[in-house]
């Protein structure tokens, strides 16, 4: 029967015990390899010890999530909240219990943000939506403080020019029945770490496509990467060179 750790003495490699040092090395290598595999699968690079982007005190963010399956609502908040709290001086995250239920909280938070901060970014994490109507009621001088708007909503790409007309500097949206969460993860990760919107957009689209290809590879009957990409590819209108740290 197997016994305590020893150094290998048998001539048959398969019957030898591994030395403690070597076992430790193999174990660490296995752990490192699996972690690297996860990142390789994601196609992402880790941001180790990323610093807060300058100008944090000058910006605020407002995110709104519509009614969805509890898992989606939970996941959206879990992923988004820390990025907003770390990279913005103040943030609000609203989860709607039913369509339109967040109007009061949204307008109240937006009023506070527009009064207190020169740069306000909006994250509209909702299916096809018309939150733009809630912003229209604000005076033009306030609306001009809305800097960047990201909208996950399906078919909401055409809202871009309307947001710019309202005063926003940049807008990113999706053209069709999109799978925007695969894009949003990369957008938020890169945009908050100092990439321009155009850079974050390009990375987000590229990595979203990669995931679609992986899904297609795993289940070719269920997923068509090209069709998914056609519906989901994000585009930016307005200032694509905008960085999180830039001031309006």
């Amino acid at each position, binding site marked *: *029967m*197997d016994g305590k750790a020893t150094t290998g003495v048998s001539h048959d*490699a*398969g*019957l030898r*015990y591994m030395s403690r040092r070597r076992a430790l090395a193999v174990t660490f290598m296995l752990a490192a390899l699996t972690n690297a595999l996860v990142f390789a699968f994601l196609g992402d690079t880790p941001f180790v010890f990323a610093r807060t982007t300058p100008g944090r005190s000058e910006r605020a963010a407002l995110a709104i999530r519509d009614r969805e399956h509890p898992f989606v609502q939970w996941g959206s908040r879990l*992923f988004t909240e820390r990025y907003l709290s770390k990279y913005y001086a103040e943030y609000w995250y609203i989860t709607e219990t039913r369509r339109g239920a967040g109007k009061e909280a949204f307008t109240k938070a937006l009023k506070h943000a527009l009064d207190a901060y020169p740069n306000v970014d909006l994250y509209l994490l909702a299916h096809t939506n018309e939150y733009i109507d809630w912003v229209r009621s604000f005076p033009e001088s306030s609306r001009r403080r809305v800097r960047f708007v990201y909208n996950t909503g399906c078919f909401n790409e055409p809202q871009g020019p309307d947001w710019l007309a309202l005063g926003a500097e940049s807008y990113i949206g999706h053209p069709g029945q999109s799978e925007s969460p695969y894009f949003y993860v990369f957008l938020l990760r890169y945009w908050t770490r100092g990439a321009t919107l155009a850079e974050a957009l390009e990375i987000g689209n590229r990595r979203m496509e990669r995931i679609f290809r992986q899904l297609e590879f795993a289940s070719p009957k269920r997923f068509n990467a090209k069709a998914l990409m056609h519906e989901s590819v994000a585009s930016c209108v307005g200032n694509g060179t905008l960085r999180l740290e830039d001031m309006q």
Partner: protein
Amino acid sequence: MIRRYEHFILGPLALLFQAAPTAFIYLAPNLFYGVDASLPEHLLWMMSMTGLAILSLLGMTLCYFASYLLLTRSRRLVAFPMVALFCAPAFLIAAIYLTATLMFMTWI
């Protein structure tokens, strides 16, 4: 008696334990957003991250112990297949949860 065989038990246990974060992810959303939501939303991040971090770290630690003990206490002929069968998949699942946890914390 159990101590003599613990290295054989730890591998499958490490793999089985990976079901714990999965169960947590399955259950936690309903505590905050389900029909019978019992926890306030402002606690979501702190409570969910604490749960996820503890479970993913425990899962990873269990993998380390399982792999190390198997390699040092079993002959290679036994240890390698067991590490490949139980520890490697357990490490992979634990790495997914740990990566997600660190990403949510914006540490990586």
